[in-house]
């Protein structure tokens, strides 16, 4: 079973994402901000990370930049999932090493399509 880390400061979004991803046969861990996510990754690198942008303590972009410098940090496939839906933000995320990008609001089909896109399912 593939591991997916869901990083979002909204518990509602984490719950929705968890439900969708569990149906897609992922084992889910959750983090409320970038720092928690980084700590989780240092313990065990997940296969996939669904990543919000705007979060307290450490935002998604900062987390991604740090993650890609960690040993083994190039391995997880990172899919941004954020309300930041303009070209400039998307381009910055891709440059920082994001593999895909979901613009909120999202639904089951979009998550599934994007995870297929990057070969996770």
């Amino acid at each position, binding site marked *: 079973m593939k591991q997916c880390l869901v990083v979002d400061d909204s518990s509602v979004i984490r719950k929705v994402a968890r439900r969708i991803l569990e149906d897609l046969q992922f084992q889910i861990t959750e983090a409320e901000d970038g720092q928690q996510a980084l700590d989780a990754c240092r313990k065990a690198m997940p296969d996939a990370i669904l990543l919000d942008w705007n979060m307290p303590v450490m935002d998604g972009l900062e987390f991604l930049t740090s993650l890609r410098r960690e040993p083994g940090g190039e391995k997880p496939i990172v899919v941004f999932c954020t309300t930041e839906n303009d070209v400039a933000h*998307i381009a910055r995320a891709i440059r920082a090493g994001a593999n895909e990008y979901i*613009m909120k609001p999202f*639904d089951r089909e979009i998550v599934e399509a994007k995870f297929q896109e990057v070969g996770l399912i």
Partner: protein
Amino acid sequence: MTPTEYDFLKRFLKERSGLMLSDDKQYLVESRLVPVARKNGIDTLSGLVQAMQRGGNAVLSNAVVEAMTTNESFFFRDKTPFEHFNNIMLPAMLEKRASSRSVKIWCAAASTGQEPYSIGICLKEAAHKVAGWRFRILGTDLSSEVLEKAKAGIYSQFEVQRGLPIQMLLKYFAQQGDLWQINPDLRAMIEWRKLNLLENFSHLGEFDIVFCRNVLIYFDQQTKIDILQRIAKMMPEDGFLVLGAAETVVGLTDAFQPVPGQRGLYQLKQAASATAAPRLAMASSFGLK
């Protein structure tokens, strides 16, 4: 719209068209039915549902069914046909049309344009191979309304997130608020025409590649046969036909044979296309003249 009203819509659509609407399709209902409501002088979706519940307005009910059952189209829908395009059809054409350097492609049920644009994107991605070539892509559909949308090439955030890799969104679209528009050079690659497949379409000319996906399913057996036979007559011997994932020519016509191992991909049967006579005989064997 309240949950009760949404449930009413779900039941109504199930009964009237067999469409199964899941609970997370509010955005779809909104994007499809708000225009229907407006056209009928109704401000909100709640108002629309209430008007339907009062009953007696068949025109309104039909408009709702039609709006909700129009085939939803994605960019690179089903993936495989576009892999076939890149790996089989395009290389074959580049070899066989080397003297004319001209290839004609027909999307026979273009709907809101995602399929022809996906082909256009494939050609852009293969730019180094097709430099100096002329590709004509024709997109036809029964509905002038969807063709208007196809021509404009403007899609919602939901539509561009199904099947389209984010890199391609950045590369081939321009953002306009919450909407995304296909770049002008891609739009210029495609010609749009209104066409009913039940009517004669031989005037469109010859096509090397025909995409006819997810439309035959709406027709009865005899009509399917007729359409496939007429498409066969518009294709050169080495042309390709692409059908939808759930469609086949098997049991319908001998004009086409499946390309072995390539789901949904067909070519003319050499024997059938060698001379006109066997094809005529075959048509009459199906009761068509």
